[in-house]
C-alpha cells in the first residue's frame, strides 16, 4: 500500500498502480496475476493492435501476460458452419494449450461464447469424459476481456484518456450468450474525455454472423444498412465493441459509403493513455 494524493492518480496509473477511489486516496497494487492471452485467430491476423492493447493494459495494471504461440483458432467458424468434426481437434488444441493457465483472457466475446455454449456439448458428442472434465475445469478460468477487467480484476477505471465521442455496439454473443450488459459501458464511462453516446436499437445484430456474411450476403448487407443508419444517427466519431468481427462488418459498410467513422476495439480505447505510447487515439 502506498499513500498517494489523489492528484497524482493519473501518473500512478501509468506506473501500474490501480486507483481505488472507494478508499479515499489510498492506492492499492493488485495481486499480480499470470494471464494467458488467447487472442483469437482473426485478431492475430487482422487486428494485431487489439492484442497489443490487451497486453499493454494488463501489464500496466500490474499483471503478467503470457501468449502460448501454438494457439490458433477456437473452432467457432467450423462449428457454427456445420463442420463439427473439423472443429473437434481445435477444441482439443485449445484445452491442451490452456489447461494449466491460471486465468485466460480472450478479447473476443464470440470465441468465449463458442467455448461456453458449445465446448461441453462437443465433448459429450465425442463421448470423451476426459475432455469433458478438462473443459469443465478450464471454462471458469476463461474470461472475455471486459469481463476479466470488471469481474475478475474488479477494475472499472483503468486510467484511460480518449477524447472522442464513442458509441458502443453490444455484440450479440456478448449480450445474449455471455450476458455482458453493463460491464463495457461502465469501463467506457470511466475513460477520461470520452463522450459515450447511446446507439439506437443497439441490441440488434449487425448482420455479420460469420459465414452468414457471405452465404447470405444480401440479407447481411440489409441488416448492416440498419446498423449503419443507427451509428450515423449518433454522430459519434468512433464505434466500439467487444468483437472485432462486428466492427469489421460495420467498418466495411461505413467505409464503402465514404463515412469517416472509425471502429476501435474496446481494449484499444482502454489502453489509450495521455502522452503515452500505445494509445492510438
Amino acid at each position, binding site marked *: 500500500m502506498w499513500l498517494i494524493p489523489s492528484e497524482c492518480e493519473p501518473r500512478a496509473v501509468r506506473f501500474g498502480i490501480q486507483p481505488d477511489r472507494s478508499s479515499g486516496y489510498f492506492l492499492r497494487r493488485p495481486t499480480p496475476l499470470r494471464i494467458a492471452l488467447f*487472442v483469437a*485467430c482473426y*485478431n*492475430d*491476423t*487482422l*487486428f*494485431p493492435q*487489439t492484442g*497489443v492493447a490487451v497486453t499493454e493494459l494488463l501489464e500496466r495494471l500490474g499483471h503478467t501476460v503470457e501468449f502460448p504461440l*501454438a*494457439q*490458433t*483458432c477456437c*473452432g467457432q*467458424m*467450423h*462449428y*457454427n*458452419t*456445420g*463442420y*463439427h*468434426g*473439423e472443429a473437434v*481437434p*481445435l477444441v482439443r*488444441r485449445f484445452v491442451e494449450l490452456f489447461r494449466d493457465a491460471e486465468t485466460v483472457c480472450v478479447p473476443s466475446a464470440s470465441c468465449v461464447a463458442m467455448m461456453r*455454449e*458449445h465446448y461441453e456439448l462437443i465433448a459429450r458428442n465425442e463421448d470423451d469424459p476426459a475432455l469433458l472434465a478438462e473443459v469443465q475445469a478450464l471454462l471458469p478460468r476463461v474470461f472475455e476481456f471486459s469481463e476479466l477487467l470488471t469481474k475478475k480484476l474488479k477494475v472499472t477505471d483503468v486510467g484511460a484518456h480518449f477524447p472522442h465521442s464513442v458509441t458502443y455496439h453490444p455484440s*450479440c*454473443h456478448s*449480450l*445474449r450468450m455471455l450476458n455482458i450488459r453493463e460491464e463495457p459501458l461502465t469501463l467506457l464511462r470511466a475513460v477520461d474525455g470520452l463522450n459515450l453516446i447511446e446507439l439506437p436499437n443497439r441490441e*440488434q*445484430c449487425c448482420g*455479420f*454472423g*460469420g*459465414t*452468414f*456474411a*457471405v*452465404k*447470405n*450476403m*444480401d*440479407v*447481411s*448487407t*440489409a*441488416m*448492416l444498412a*440498419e446498423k449503419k443508419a443507427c451509428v450515423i444517427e449518433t454522430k459519434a466519431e468512433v464505434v466500439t465493441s467487444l468483437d472485432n468481427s462486428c466492427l*469489421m462488418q460495420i*467498418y*466495411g*459498410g461505413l*467505409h*464503402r459509403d465514404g463515412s469517416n467513422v472509425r471502429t476501435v476495439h474496446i481494449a484499444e480505447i482502454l489502453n489509450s493513455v495521455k502522452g503515452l505510447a500505445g494509445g492510438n487515439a
Partner: protein
Amino acid sequence: MSIRVGKAAKAPAFPIAAHKALENNQLRANVRRATTTIRNKRALRVEEMPDWEALRSAGAAIKQHTLAHLDHYLEEFVANCERAGGKVHWARDADEANSIAINLIRTYAPKDSTTPVEVIKVKTMTSDEIQMNHALEAAGITPIETDLADMIVQLGHDEPSHIVVPALHKNRTEIRDIFRASMNKPELTDQPEDLTSAARKYLRERFLRTKIAVSGANFAIADTGTVCVVESEGNGRMCLTLPEVLITLVGIEKVIPSFGDLEVYLQTLPRSATGERMNPYNSLWTGVTPGDGPQHFHVILLDNGRTKLLEDEMERETLQCIRCAACLNACPVYRETGGHAYGSIYSGPIGAILSPQLQSLEHSRSLPYASTLCGACYEVCPVKINIPEVLIHLRGRVVREDQKTLKGKLGVENIAMQAAATIFRNERRYEASQRLARIGQLAFERKGMLTNLPGMAGGWTATRDLKPIPSHSFRDWWKSRKKKGASN
C-alpha cells in the same frame, strides 16, 4: 408415406428468395413496422411479469415431459375426448389427414348436389402445412378462411408470411385493394373501420350459412379431452360454435397433460404472440354438448414427420413450440426479408428449424443457414427452444450429408473449410498461411483497401470494404518484443 410442409419442397433456396424479397421496399417497410410494433408491445407485457423466467421454464418443462411420454398423453387425450362425444382420427401424413377431412365433409354435407359444399375455417396453420385448401378444392369443396388475416391472404391469392399475423406483409391500402377486387366494393376506403366492417359483413353471411367448420387447436388437454383455441377477433368463436359439424386438425405435439397446465401457456402465449395480457377469446370445448354448439365433433391427430423428431433430444426441442411467433418478431433476418423468403408456411427462426426437420433437409438445406445465430429468438422464446443450437445441429447434418457425395466433397466451401481446418491444426502452417495471405492480397489492394476479392470473399467485398491484412500479426509483435526483452 410422403411428408410435406406446404410448398416448401419446391421453394427456392433462402438466399435467392431473400434477394427477391429485399427488392420489395413496400413489403420490407410493412414487415419492419409490424414486427417493431409487436416486439415493443411484447417487451412491455413481459417486463411487468415478476415470474416471467419461471413461466418460461415451466412452459419448457411441461412440453419436455409431454414429448418424452407423448404416446401416453395422446392415448389419454383420445380416451377422454371420445368419452365426451368426440371422435378422434389418426393421420400419418398430409394426404391421410386431407382424405379424412374430405370424407368427413362429404358425410355431413347436404346431399343435394346443386349447391357447392362450403366449409368455414379458422386458426389452422396446420391445414396450411398439409395444403388442405388445395385438397378440398380438388374435391369440389370450397374452403372459406375466416380469421381476418387468413381471409386477406386467401382473397389476395397470397401465402401467409407470419405464423400469428399471416397478412403482416400487407398494409391497409393493399388490403383495401384486395377487398375492392374480391368483394365488388369499388368505393371502399382504407380506413380501418371501413375495412373491418366490410370483412365483418362478408364473414357473417358465411358464418350463418355454413354447416361445417374446420379449425386448428392451440392445446389438446389429455386429462379432460378438452381442445383450446385462442384468438383475438371472435371469428374463431363463431366458427367453433355456430356450425353443426366441427373438424379440428391437431398436430400431435399440441397435447399437454392436464387442464392446470393451461395456466402457464395462457399467460405466456398471448404476451409473446401479440403483446396482450390475455387473448380476447379463449375457446375451450370438450366433446359434444347436446343443444349447444356443434353436434358432431371430430379431431384429426396429425403426425406428418413429427414422430421422427422425437428420437433426437435436441431435435425434439423444436416440438415444444406453441406458435407464438415471438422469434419471428425478434429476428433481424425475418425483419429484412419477411416470411415468404423461407419458402414454407413456417417462417422465421422456428421455420428455419421446423421445415427442414419435418420434411427433409434435402428440400430446405439453406434454411438452417438463414440466421446469424444472434440469439434474439432464444431470448424471447416462451418455451425456451434453443433455436441457435438447433440451427447449428442441423447445419452439421447438412454438411455431413454433403460430404457423402462427390459433388459436396469437391465443393468450394468444403475445400476451403478442410484447408482452414488443416491450417488451424498446426501453428507453423497457420503462420505460413498468414504470410501467404499477405502476399496474395497484394493483387487486390486498391488505395490501401480491399474492395474486390475473388471467390467466396467476393461476397464480402460486393457490399463492404476490407482493410488489408497488416504487415505484422500479433504473434510477430509478441515474438519481436520477446527478442528485444531478451537482448536488453
